[in-house]
């Protein structure tokens, strides 16, 4: 990966800007080994997460965003595996650790909230039994301590502790998703990884859950990696935004800046893909075409076949990441650090 520093302001590397980064992902690649060949679902992804930071990861289905999350949490199962790179969490490289060694980290310091709470919660156990399982697996055995903490985390997410006795089917979708988040809070982790936790909820419940996550974060100070396909959802909640396309980072930077002035043509296209309920009704175009098959990705830029600003070189040159105003952008238009739009 080559980076060009090309800005008149004094540049600092991401590492120096966030000295206390709790998570450092370095040149991470994930391969799916299939009969027909190797599919590289995540390629050369590097980023860091500072304490208490909220990072949004957006992209279309198949862009590798969920695979990246699973790789960070060391939850990949065959045929997927990390082929290169490192994931350093609180100073330890997690890649290659055994499950036993990982259990000292998982759920205590890093927890994961999955997409579908209905599938992630055990339907035949009450909420309290599932909380108890998680706590006992990490060495908390005192009954009163378990009961107290369970009630406490449930209250934190705005659910009456009487629901500890409830079974998942007795709760609404929003409450199930909230109790998943409560479970992730049991040990007050440093990092909570969320994979589209609101995608099954309607907009009212969705906003309420997002506000709740943000409040908890302000109170407890954990960092969040939030994966979603809906950019508008993380607009107001994330500090930084990573836009992924076909297994690569297309753009990574401060959310506010990206929304103000997106640099990568794919990000620009995504911005124009959302109709608004306010303002004039304008015709939108979306992005024509569909994402590439990762078993045989385009030779040059992976977005080139759909890019409205495509140049000849894009079709043949593998595009490195350029640093523009301390944002990562993978686009030849940004070669000189300036957007040509």
């Amino acid at each position, binding site marked *: 990966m080559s980076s060009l520093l090309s800005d008149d302001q004094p540049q600092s590397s991401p590492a120096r800007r966030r000295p206390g980064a709790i998570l450092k992902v370095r040149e991470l690649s994930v391969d799916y080994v299939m009969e027909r060949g190797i599919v590289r679902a995540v390629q050369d992804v590097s980023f860091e997460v500072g304490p208490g930071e909220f990072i949004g990861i957006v992209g*279309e289905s198949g862009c590798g965003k969920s695979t990246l999350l699973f790789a960070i949490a060391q939850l990949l199962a065959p045929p997927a595996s990390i082929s290169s790179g490192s994931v350093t969490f609180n100073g330890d490289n997690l890649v290659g650790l055994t499950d036993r060694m990982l259990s000292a980290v998982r759920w205590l310091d890093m927890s994961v909230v999955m997409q579908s709470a209905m599938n992630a919660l055990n339907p035949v156990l009450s909420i309290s039994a599932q909380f108890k399982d998680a706590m006992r697996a990490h060495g908390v055995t005192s009954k009163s301590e378990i009961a107290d903490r369970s009630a406490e985390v449930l209250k934190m997410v705005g659910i009456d502790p009487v629901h500890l006795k409830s079974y998942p089917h007795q709760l*609404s979708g929003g409450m199930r998703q909230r109790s998943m988040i409560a479970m992730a809070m049991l040990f007050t982790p440093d990092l909570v990884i969320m994979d589209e936790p609101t995608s099954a909820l309607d907009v*009212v419940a969705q906003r309420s859950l997002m506000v709740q996550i943000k409040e908890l974060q302000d109170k407890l100070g954990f960092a969040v990696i939030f994966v979603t396909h809906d950019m*508008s959802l993380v607009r*107001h909640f994330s500090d930084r935004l990573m836009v992924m396309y076909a297994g690569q980072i297309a753009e990574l930077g401060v959310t506010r800046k990206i929304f103000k002035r997106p640099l990568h043509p794919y990000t620009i296209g995504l911005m124009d893909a959302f*109709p*608004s*309920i306010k303002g004039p009704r304008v015709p939108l175009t*979306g992005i024509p075409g*569909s994402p590439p098959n990762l078993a045989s990705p385009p030779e040059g830029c992976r977005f080139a076949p759909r890019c409205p600003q495509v140049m000849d070189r894009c079709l043949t040159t593998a595009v490195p990441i350029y640093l523009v105003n301390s944002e990562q952008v993978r686009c030849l238009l940004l070669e000189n650090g300036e957007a040509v739009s």
Partner: protein
Amino acid sequence: MTDQETAPRPDTVTSAPLLRTERLTRHFRIGGGVRRQMLHAVDDVTLEIGRREIVALAGESGSGKSTIARLLARIYKPTSGEIYFQGKPISRLRSRREVLGYRSDVPMVFQDPFASINPVFRVSHGVMRSLKLHRPELSAAERQVEAERVLAAVGLTPPAEVLQRFPHELSGGQRQRVGFAQALAMRPKLILADEPVSMLDVSIRIGLLNLMTQLRDEQGVSILYITHDIASARYVADRLIVMYAGQVAEQGPVEDVLADPKHPYTQLLLSAVPDPRADLNVGAETDHGEPPRVIDPTPGCRFRWRCPLAIDVCHSVTPELAELAPGHAAACHVAQSGAEVRAF
């Protein structure tokens, strides 16, 4: 509404709406034995769909919008109420020919393009089947021409080549276009589109929405667009119907409803829509979005538990839709009393 539509007068229906429902109701029995309960999926829904019109039916999951689509598609029979198509009640369709005729006039496009197309047949199979069944007068050569025409109309080019492809060779967006092509082959008057873009990636949704407006403008079909996404409803629809707990909360021209929502639920819904171009609205955070209770409901407004403006009458009398502005109606006692409704 007007009495001219109730009498079946096939030759003078042009002034009537294309489709109209009259107090359409569908209940489902749940549980058995002693504790038999009724789930009121759709209650007393009266709505109209005009010619060359896209009507968006919006609401949260469980609000009854898909049940309405299935009632209109004759997948379910109504518990009570009636559906009039071109002025004629569809419960009176008896012969196979009449039923087939209605099915080809009002086809459905489903939510999941990966499940709704048979994976073992080429694209031509579904389109040709529609043509053989619903337009038997066409010769084989005419069928091929017609199949290519509908594929081109939905933007699948080159049509002759796409017809020979298998579904797995197509992307989700292309498959959903095949769904619209199959519907279009029947020369429909009204396409029932149940969440047709919700399974697609954001970057290709707009393409499908644009296709829907194009079908309205160029092919003259009406579309009932069922969605939970108000922003996309605004993008394509002429009129918006907001459902809550099996009933119509509000309906009207889409811009009127969005600019001046009369029903507190519509206001809540609009305030919660994430909008990347606008500031965050933090007005109604106390509302957790709990779903409504529609099992053996008692009379009264179904939104009253969540409504900050609820008054006594809301707890005892179910509000009826009433027009509050031209073409713009809401089922809310407070709004109908003339009071300013600003709940969220």
